[in-house]
């Protein structure tokens, strides 16, 4: 009995194992050299899917467009998207795989700051350009040689809000933030920058990003008797915050982060969204921008292409991937080669590059290239985004 059991334990799994490994190891070795390979590590599913999904869609759309035009410098572009589900360990695994095995030219992503920080070292060691779509300041500060990022800095968003508050003579605020990376980073910047603008934080609450009711939290803020509320989070909680706040009778202005930049949340919040103030890139108000704005043509085209391809409104997050991809192609074009080092240097010398997030001015000490002007203060009027006047 025991003998038979043992033999089965050893042999059956052994055969399965050997067979699967044989297929894995030797079935996937063939490769062609011609196209430029671009890897993308995005959270297409999981808790950060609101970032990764539009980013992945945008990249697919852009790569198809490039290849239809005949590629870049005569090379076709091959896109390898890896869904990390916002797990750092997967991002690490995929980064290693893309660099060591697929030998990609550059990596776009990851979508979240936590993942980007985990693979920063991998990109440095592998001498591969990493264009992160995540917002955190730490990604490019201090500067790592191969790591860039396209979203606007959190600190600039906070500065934009504080500048607006100064105008409105607000000095005592309540802060709410979600417990995801986005909320965490924003909260840190608010706490850091508030003293500089003479603003005191009277209440500071962190809530679960998946929370479905925040009445208790806003009640606590209300009790602190503040002049304004800043909420720093991503869907769906940020729409719930404003609803709950208005329901318990809070009348003070509510500021949101640039994470509010998706018309779906305005629709979800309904009437409560009216008058909400938030800083954002100009993509959301592309239609109403003056013709003189250098970003207008690009933004309108992206919005039109995205809407017609995917039958949904673009969000600023997809724009981050758009910028990452176009910056990379532009740099390849300027370097006139597919040498990684040359392209990396070319990115560092991009000036006045028009993207969805703003006008990028890179330098060896600034791997983000955007400043506070990338933001426009927006508000919600009649269920639509509008520029605050």
């Amino acid at each position, binding site marked *: 009995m025991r003998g038979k059991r043992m033999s089965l334990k050893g042999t059956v799994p052994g055969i399965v194992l050997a067979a699967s490994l044989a297929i894995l190891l030797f079935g996937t070795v063939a490769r062609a050299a011609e196209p430029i390979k671009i890897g993308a590590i995005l959270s297409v599913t999981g808790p950060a899917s609101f970032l990764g999904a539009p980013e992945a869609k945008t990249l697919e759309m852009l790569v198809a467009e490039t290849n239809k035009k005949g590629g870049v410098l005569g090379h076709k572009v091959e896109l390898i998207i890896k869904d990390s589900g916002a797990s750092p360990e997967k991002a690490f695994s995929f980064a290693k795989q893309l660099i060591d095995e697929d030998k990609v030219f550059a990596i776009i992503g990851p979508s979240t700051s936590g993942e980007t920080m985990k693979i920063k070292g991998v990109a440095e060691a592998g001498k591969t350009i990493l264009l992160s779509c995540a917002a955190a300041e730490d990604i490019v500060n201090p500067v790592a040689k191969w790591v860039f990022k396209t979203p606007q800095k959190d600190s600039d968003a906070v500065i934009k809000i504080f500048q607006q508050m100064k105008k409105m003579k607000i000095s005592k605020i309540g802060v709410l933030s979600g417990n995801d990376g986005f909320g965490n980073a924003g909260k840190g910047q608010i706490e850091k920058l508030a003293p500089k603008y003479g603003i005191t934080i009277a209440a500071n609450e962190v809530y679960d990003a998946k929370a479905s009711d925040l009445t208790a939290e806003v009640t606590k803020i209300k009790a602190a008797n503040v002049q304004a509320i800043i909420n720093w989070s991503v869907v769906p909680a940020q729409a719930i915050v404003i609803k709950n706040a208005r329901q318990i009778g809070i009348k003070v202005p509510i500021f949101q982060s640039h994470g509010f930049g998706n018309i779906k949340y305005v629709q*979800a919040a309904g009437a409560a969204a009216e008058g909400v103030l938030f800083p954002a890139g100009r993509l959301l108000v592309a239609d109403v921008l003056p013709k003189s704005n250098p970003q207008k043509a690009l933004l309108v085209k992206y919005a039109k292409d995205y809407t017609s391809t995917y039958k949904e409104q673009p969000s600023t997050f997809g724009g981050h991937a758009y910028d990452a991809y176009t910056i990379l192609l532009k740099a390849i074009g300027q370097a006139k080669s597919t040498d990684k080092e040359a392209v990396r240097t070319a990115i560092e010398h991009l000036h006045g590059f028009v993207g969805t997030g703003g006008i990028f001015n890179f330098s060896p000490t600034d791997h983000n290239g955007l400043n506070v002007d990338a933001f426009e203060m927006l508000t919600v009027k009649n269920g639509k985004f509008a520029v605050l006047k």
Partner: protein
Amino acid sequence: MLGGMIAVTMHKLVPLPLAILFAVVLTMIVGAVIEIVFIRWLHKPSVLRMVIITIGISILIREIALHIWGESVRALPYFTGSSVSSINLGGVYISSQVLWVVGIGALAVAALTAFFGLTMLGRQMRACAANRDAARLCGIDAKNMVTLSFVLSAAIGAIGGCVVCPITYVQYDSGTQLAIKGFTVAILGGLGNSTAAVGAGMILGILESFSIWVLPTAYKEAISIAILLAILFVKPSGIFGSAEAARLKEF
């Protein structure tokens, strides 16, 4: 989750009440199909096995929902009023949708209590829950009862989803957390007692809301789970359940 999602999708085509009705019926059918496909034909499954299977199914539904509806958040409009209108009751502001939730919740509990206490079918179901073999000996078709219970709980879940989703929104993964919380409440109240479950739900909700005055809000979710563990350790029959009754059930 499924109920809310289907209702939102249908609401684009038909008026609200019809959309909700459709969502509830469709979710009931899904519940029945799941039971018939995955559970019914198993020969005397252990409870643990069923638990693992249902966990697997919930993952599957979530992933299917992700691929059908995508990752975006959706919501139904408020049944009456709008998202900012509220009713002032002696200084306390209550949204009209909250009244809908409470009202429909009370209605559901009343209906369930009546069903289990007064109708033959309801009594048969309770008999099956208490002791399946004995119930079968009395001529009750236990298998149909299990299917029925799946359909019934799917219907209630769908109604719940439709009613709260104007407030909380619905996303492909909004079910999991609710399921865990629901289980906590059910155990807290003692399984198989819907009135006690409501009481337990209120206690849990109040404790959770108050916990944020003492602890950072980020730990709110951990509080309700800690309560669940404490109850399981101390009095597995729930705070309102009787220990003797629980012992008779075959878990």
